[in-house]
């Protein structure tokens, strides 16, 4: 049976420690959007000793570049982008209090280790379901790097935003390992 949680942001260490890979979580509260170009700028800001546009303490970052909001809607489609491109950046952000990221696709061993070290989790949202996921976004506001367009940092207020725990703080992994033996191929990675 799948375990379901309803959590409010910002997330605490005990929120994180209560989660296991495979659990379903409905998130409510503020989350921040950032993807490739925004992460580069966040890291540059840290390198220069500048303050970030939002507090990382207990924060959740959603890897998304939404489509433009049509009239009468707060946001366009807003599903996850592939996460591995943010692995290097995310490790550093986790050292500064970031509790969770939301995306799709596998993470590096180094990032998974950082989740254990810093008591954080990686959530998966359903890729290609951006219209559906946008219904859980109640407000959206650009708070940094407006010149990046779809890649600008947005503060989203979400209600019961559905995610799956892919990597928990205990080394758990939800993604299936491809069965190379079943197709007669040698596993070159081990």
């Amino acid at each position: 049976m799948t375990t379901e949680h309803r959590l409010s942001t910002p997330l605490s260490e005990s929120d994180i420690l209560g989660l296991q890979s495979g659990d379903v979580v409905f998130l409510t509260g503020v989350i921040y959007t950032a993807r490739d170009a925004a992460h580069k700028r966040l890291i540059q800001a840290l390198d220069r000793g500048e303050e970030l546009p939002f507090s990382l303490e207990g924060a959740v970052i959603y890897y998304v570049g939404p489509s433009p909001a049509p009239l009468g809607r707060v946001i366009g489609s807003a599903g996850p982008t592939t996460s591995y491109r943010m692995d290097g950046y995310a490790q550093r952000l986790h050292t500064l209090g970031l509790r969770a990221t939301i995306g799709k696709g596998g993470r590096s061993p180094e990032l998974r280790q950082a989740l254990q070290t810093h008591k954080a989790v990686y959530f998966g949202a359903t890729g290609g379901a951006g219209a559906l996921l946008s219904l859980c976004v109640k407000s959206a506001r650009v708070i940094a790097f407006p010149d990046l367009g779809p890649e600008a940092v947005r503060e989203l207020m979400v209600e019961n935003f559905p995610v799956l725990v892919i990597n928990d703080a205990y080394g758990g992994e939800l993604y299936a390992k491809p069965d190379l033996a079943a197709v007669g191929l040698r596993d070159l990675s081990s």
Partner: protein
Amino acid sequence: MARQGVKLTIFKENMREIKASDIRARVAEMVIAANRNLPHDVLEKLEACAAKESSASGREIFRQVLENAKLARDTGLPLCQDCGLAVFFVDLGQDCRVTGGGLKQAVTQGMVQGYEDGYLRKSSCDPLTRENTGDNSPAVIHLDLVPGDALKISFMPKGGGAENMSGVAMLSPAQGWEGVRDFALRRVAEAGSNPCPPVILGIGIGATFDTVPILAKKALFRPLDDTHPDPKTAAGEQELLSLVNKLGIGPMGLGGDTTCLGVKINMAPCHLACLPVAVNIQCHSARRAEVVL
């Protein structure tokens, strides 16, 4: 001089004229519709696979994907926030000509108009500075001259996540079909959950280093329910489809029976020394459309 004038008149009468403004309008409509509506064959395949999927998480992903498709159709929101780079295959009949503007310009202008009017995301940027071009231009246009007097424009909004997982290899001729098949299997296995499975594979085999990926991309325009006219190629598609689904990656990588919705192979002769292969991975939000003018 007079004889030349007569010839020119005859030439002009045989040429069908298509207005650039008509092309712009039809392309603008098409890019919006393609981003809101999954093709019937893709929807039917998703429904059929959902009914057969043995993994509960896989069935839940299918439920969300199908609900998303209905919502996009009903609300006009794009199916996916990644509205892609705009890829076109344009077949220009040699007995027609475009008036009132250039063909490629008309396609690009129509695309730009559609992406603006349809609230579609503009994802085109400078490769190194990463500065967004602002209007999703340039369109990627593969132009071919064909018999007849029709203009066919096929469109695919190609998302970046699945494109990143695609690959090209120059195999040795001795590796043959097995080499091609295993290269494709490894690409899908390494891609895992990244390209939004269940995926569709466009496989280019043969041609040259520069053209084999175009074969692969063009293969993705075939409907999922068609059968390759060459029986041996059709059998290769079925074999690869069945093997990819044994990988067990499943919908969104959560495990299951459905890793791949279809395999489409496009072959062309190649050099004696070469065996080029390209695997173009398409996500489950396999949007495409075409108009014939």
